């Protein structure tokens, strides 16, 4: 039985005036999967999520979601249009673009109002979602006064209020303090446990095991360089070096200067993902 939600066949895309952003991308995402899209900056991760959410449309190839081809005409009309919008939630990297209503309550109400639900239903969902994320106190606040972590929570809440089955996340932990990061990861874990399909775009190798079971690695040539389980990808130092996800530069530790492949994480410590070294 085919339980793939998304199916991409040889998808290519380029921004007008710029070169190719994605080249011959083919893969499918199954229901309940935790998929990561891994790649250095500029390799087209964000673009891919936009394509999967029906905000951009492929120039070459095709994208099928829930068995239907994603095209502007199909997304404009019921029943597929509203259904798709409800089922798929996209968490933007820029929370300021995602929170465009004057207050948190109105922000959460936006999606349900588009779905033409009754006022009681809308209010009930808003209350429940605020409770779920523990942000009832933010209900009447204005978005520009919130901290980065609070903004992320409100943004996520505004998606969850529609009870989607798929979440597309664009660098969800970028710019968040450690506690907020932790909260977010726990929440995503919980949602996944309840059957949510997660597709996360990131370049953070440290977070990868917490976010995904399967990884699509994008190279700087805008193609898929690898597609496999997280552990296997993280072990392949040669691959990671080739696609510019880890580097080797001269640095100090243990009182000696040396160089070997590694990646820096937020706390400025070192985590040796792979490779040996000698003092």
């Amino acid at each position, binding site marked *: 039985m085919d339980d793939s939600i998304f199916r991409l066949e040889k998808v290519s895309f380029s921004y007008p005036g710029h070169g190719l952003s994605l080249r011959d991308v083919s893969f499918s995402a199954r229901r309940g999967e935790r998929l990561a899209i891994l790649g250095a900056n500029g390799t087209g991760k964000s673009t891919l999520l936009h394509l999967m959410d029906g905000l951009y449309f492929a120039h070459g190839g095709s994208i099928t979601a829930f068995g239907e081809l994603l095209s502007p005409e199909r997304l404009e009309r019921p029943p597929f249009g509203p259904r798709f919008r*409800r089922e*798929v939630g996209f968490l933007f990297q*820029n929370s300021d673009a995602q929170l*465009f209503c*004057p207050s948190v309550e109105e922000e959460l109400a936006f999606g349900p109002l*588009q779905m033409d639900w009754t006022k009681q239903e809308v209010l009930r969902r808003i209350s429940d979602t605020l409770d779920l994320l523990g942000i009832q106190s933010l209900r009447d606040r204005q978005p520009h006064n919130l901290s980065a972590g609070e903004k992320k929570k409100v943004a996520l809440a*505004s998606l969850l209020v529609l009870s989607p089955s798929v979440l597309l996340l664009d660098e969800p932990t970028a710019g968040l303090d450690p506690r907020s990061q932790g909260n977010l990861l726990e929440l995503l874990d919980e949602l996944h446990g309840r059957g949510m399909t997660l597709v996360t775009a990131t370049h953070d190798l440290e977070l990868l095991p917490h976010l995904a079971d399967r990884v699509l690695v994008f190279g700087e040539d805008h193609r898929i360089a690898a597609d496999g389980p997280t552990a296997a990808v993280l072990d392949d130092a040669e691959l990671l070096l080739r696609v510019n996800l880890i580097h080797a530069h001269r640095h100090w530790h243990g009182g000696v200067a040396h160089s070997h492949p590694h990646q820096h994480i937020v706390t400025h410590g070192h985590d040796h993902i792979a490779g040996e070294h000698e003092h």
Partner: protein
Amino acid sequence: MGPLPDWMVIGRSELPLPLQQRRGAWSLARKGLGEIIGKAAILLGPGVNDSHGWLTRLDARAKVLGILGLLLTTTWVRGILTLLFSLCAAWALALIGGVNVRRMALALLAVPLFTLALAAPAALNLVTEGTPLWILCHLGGGTWGPWHLPEYLAITDRGVFVAMRFTLRSLACVSFGALLAASGSPQDLLRGLRGLGVPAAFVMVAGMMARYLSLLLESAEQIHLAKLSRSIGGVGVRLEQGWAAAGIGELYRRSRRLAEEVTEAMVSRGYTGETRTMAAQRWCGRDILFVSACAALVTFLLGID
């Protein structure tokens, strides 16, 4: 990466520093920044959320109706006493209603002073004819271009009356305008407008504008700071103007980019072009009481006029 060039030696500068520093441009830039931040503070600042007065807690429609009614009456009446009364009514409402009076007072600094400056010449016999009260100087008649000069320059009784009425009216109107602005948060007031029949699309655009205004002001501040941190003042007006224009241009680019992203965010959550908002709250006793009180005040003002 290659080796550092020999002139890039830290701590030792071979080339001389500029001796002259045109003071004007430096303080100009800082002043521009200050004003932007000032305006931002008013919009983003505590303001309404701080005040717990009963006026701010009324339904927005009641506030808008009542205060607008009083404002319209103030533009209609003609007696100086009536206008004085109206002015006092505005401030009385502010004080007993628990509104942020300091914020209101700030609004009085600009327009009324300007009106006074404008009204002063109106008191002269050059502008308003009438019985002279106080002769300032003699002009001796004659002509100057297409204009005829009178015998003397004086302040007339009608002139004083007109100037006073003009200034008082401006003061009273501005007070009511400031009262309305201070009586609710931006989205509260917009919701009130919506409830009174203003098209939903307009309210949505205005609401989103208010939401993003602070972001744009921060962007403007950042752009300004970036220029400031690299300027030593004294580059001349031409270049300063170029920088101001570049700042505005950069702001526009960011605005366009943001607008595209917001459109995507809206579409992603099901937006198909129709504006949908939640239905307004009901009127409660206090709101009706307030509107009735304002109506009574309006009648009173019209009566004593």
